[in-house]
């Protein structure tokens, strides 16, 4: 739920509100266009004017009216990490294309051509400039929701940043299709690093479950994962990564597929690190595990590796990387991964990640492991979120929030709207017709000190019974605490197995502080009594009515 100031909360609760949507469109070249879907109380603010507490009109912003034609609100969705997806929030609108009335707005300090007169205090001008619609795809849309009320000036309540997926021309209009800006960073695989055998190609073939996808590892805390053995100038080496970091290797063990477990640690064995240069003149840190006795004299003197037929096995290695060795809080890990996927630091609300870390510390939840084979980015992020029972919220910045079952608001007949003067309102309740009567599923995890390429599997109840297990598996490869694993899996299974009904209703704008993934309580005989609802999606309409869809879960 949005944290509102006293003023914001009073306006939101007011029965009579002014609603203003401010839409700022930047094309991919950074040229800005602005539309305010109403006129704010005053037309032009002086630069830096502070308007009531919390409302500051930024230097350089412009209040020109432009031609957004059929903006009908924005659709916000919860991430749904339990389904291994990060659902997009979306907005679609049409802008009139005859740009004679569109207004450019300029950042403060823009240098103008010699001789161009720019009025004192003016920061916008109707330039009537033609445009190229193809410039908009890949651009950015900021949408701000401003509310005013009786006795209250217009106040910004919240804002969102979207990426323009499509800008389609037709009949002097442009149809914009936008999605939250995180989505574009979720396309592709993670880690971003190349496959190891692509860096040092050879005729070696590999025998591993993830044979075709083993990449340069990205470790957090202490990882114990398989590393690929590559052939470089006549010898085998295990790939560590970027030599700008320092790697500390503490253990090597035999692959799980080969015989019994044999393990070598740094106290009794030598792990010789070196830097090797690939064909692109890029340096890489590699090492050899001196664990083989090449001359049968009882002393290890050669790099050891495992092979079956022509196929090499990846060798599990316990190691740390200097930049992530102490990064064991999931908030820090998720922030690192987001940045590594390309999200600018300025678009991450780090304070929310820090706050979430406090909760994880109270739980005793630590992250140790590595991404060592490529997966879809969406799956990577969903795995991390499931590992810390948290969700991402994408507004103007990305926020991390721990999921909580505490109800954020009670919905009564005073909130639920009806479309006609007399008759039933908008509330609907539909049972989930499930043919899956499972009551439990599995957690996969590994103990501390064991390699993280194979896992313990344990049955966990969603509620209290384990009579009809499902085949669902939550892999928690970064978590080593069995108690926490059970709790995380139970919470995950509840979302997967215990949904009893889908609910939908239209509510007043006084519910606009709610957010997807919030839990709310609905309470009235007209709505089937009292039940808690997990909000799946919220469509905030232009008129501030809000279509809420969610689910009710059993125990």
């Amino acid at each position, binding site marked *: 739920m949005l944290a509102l100031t006293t003023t914001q909360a009073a306006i939101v609760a007011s*029965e*009579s*509100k*002014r*609603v203003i949507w401010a839409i700022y469109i930047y094309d991919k070249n950074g040229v800005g266009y602005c539309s305010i*879907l*109403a*006129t704010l109380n005053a037309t032009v603010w002086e630069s830096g004017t502070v308007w009531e507490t919390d409302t500051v009109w930024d230097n350089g912003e412009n209040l020109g009216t432009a031609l957004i034609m059929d903006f009908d609100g924005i659709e916000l969705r919860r991430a749904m990490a339990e389904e291994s997806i990060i659902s997009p929030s979306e907005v679609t609108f049409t802008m009139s294309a005859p740009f004679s009335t569109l207004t450019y707005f300029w950042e403060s300090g823009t240098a103008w051509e010699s001789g161009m007169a720019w009025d004192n205090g003016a920061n916008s001008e109707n330039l009537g400039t033609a445009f190229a619609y193809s410039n908009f795809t890949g651009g950015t849309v900021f949408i701000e929701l401003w509310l005013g009320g009786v006795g209250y000036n217009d106040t910004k309540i919240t804002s969102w940043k979207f990426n323009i997926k499509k800008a389609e021309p037709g009949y002097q209009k442009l149809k914009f299709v936008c999605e939250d800006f995180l989505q574009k960073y979720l396309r592709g695989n993670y880690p971003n690093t190349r496959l190891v055998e692509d860096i040092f190609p050879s005729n070696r073939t590999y025998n591993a479950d993830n044979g075709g996808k083993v990449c340069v590892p990205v470790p957090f805390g202490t990882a114990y994962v398989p590393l690929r053995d590559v052939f470089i100038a006549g010898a085998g080496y295990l790939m560590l990564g970027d030599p700008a970091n320092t790697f500390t290797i503490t253990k090597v063990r035999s692959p799980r597929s080969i015989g019994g477990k044999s393990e070598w640690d740094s106290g009794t064995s030598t792990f010789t690190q070196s830097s090797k240069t690939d064909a692109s003149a890029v340096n890489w840190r590699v090492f050899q595990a001196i664990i083989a006795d090449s001359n049968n004299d009882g002393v290890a003197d050669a790099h050891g590796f495992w092979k079956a037929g022509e196929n090499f096995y990846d060798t599990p290695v316990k190691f740390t990387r200097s930049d992530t060795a102490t990064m064991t809080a999931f908030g820090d890990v998720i922030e690192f991964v987001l940045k590594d996927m390309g999200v600018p630091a300025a678009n991450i609300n780090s304070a929310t990640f820090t706050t979430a870390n406090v909760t994880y510390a109270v739980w005793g939840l630590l992250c140790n492991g590595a991404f060592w084979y490529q997966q879809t980015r969406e799956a990577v992020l969903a795995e991390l979120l499931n590992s810390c029972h948290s969700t991402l919220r994408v507004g103007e910045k990305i926020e991390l929030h721990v999921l909580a079952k505490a109800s954020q608001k009670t919905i*009564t*007949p*005073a*909130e*639920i*709207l*009806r*479309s006609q*003067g007399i008759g039933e*309102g908008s*509330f609907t309740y539909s049972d989930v017709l499930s043919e899956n009567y499972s009551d439990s599923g599995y957690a996969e995890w590994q103990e501390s000190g064991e390699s993280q390429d194979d896992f313990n599997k344990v049955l966990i109840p969603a509620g209290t019974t384990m009579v009809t297990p499902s085949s669902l598996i939550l892999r928690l490869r970064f978590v080593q605490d069995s108690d926490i694993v059970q709790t995380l899996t139970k919470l995950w299974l509840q979302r997967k197995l215990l949904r009893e009904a889908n609910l939908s209703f239209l509510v*007043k*704008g*006084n519910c606009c502080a709610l957010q997807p993934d919030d839990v709310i309580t609905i309470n*009235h005989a*007209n709505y089937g009594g009292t039940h808690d609802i997990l909000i799946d999606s919220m469509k905030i309409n*232009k*008129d*501030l*009515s809000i279509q809420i869809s969610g689910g009710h879960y059993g125990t």
Partner: protein
Amino acid sequence: VILISAAEIYDYVSTVTADYTTTTLTIKAQGVVTEEGQKNQVIHLADDNSEERITLSTGSIFYVSWDWAQLSESDAGTIMDLYHDSAKANGMGNSFKWTAHDGHTYVVRFAMPLTRSGNALSRWGFQGIRLRILGRIAD
């Protein structure tokens, strides 16, 4: 200016510039003149009968409508030309100046298809004239 009411449309619209400024439509309206004013607002009605009133814009939206029952050949031609000349009102496309029944000059646009009918005396009239008030000319 003929003050026909203590408050007029003129008091609630701002000064703007018309797209077509060469001439002003001054042909007087005939018969009953209807002023229609509203605001862009939505009233949400809840299941307990309580309301939430949403104002999407504080500005007023005005339309003025009347019928020209009979016009001289000259006036009928003026209106026909104003509506259909792409350099003038261009149908509903361009705004123009109109001297209203209250004596003020407003910037308006046509908000209807132009329908003309005549009688046996070859006098032409226009039915269903409807103008959207976009602003005013200061006087």
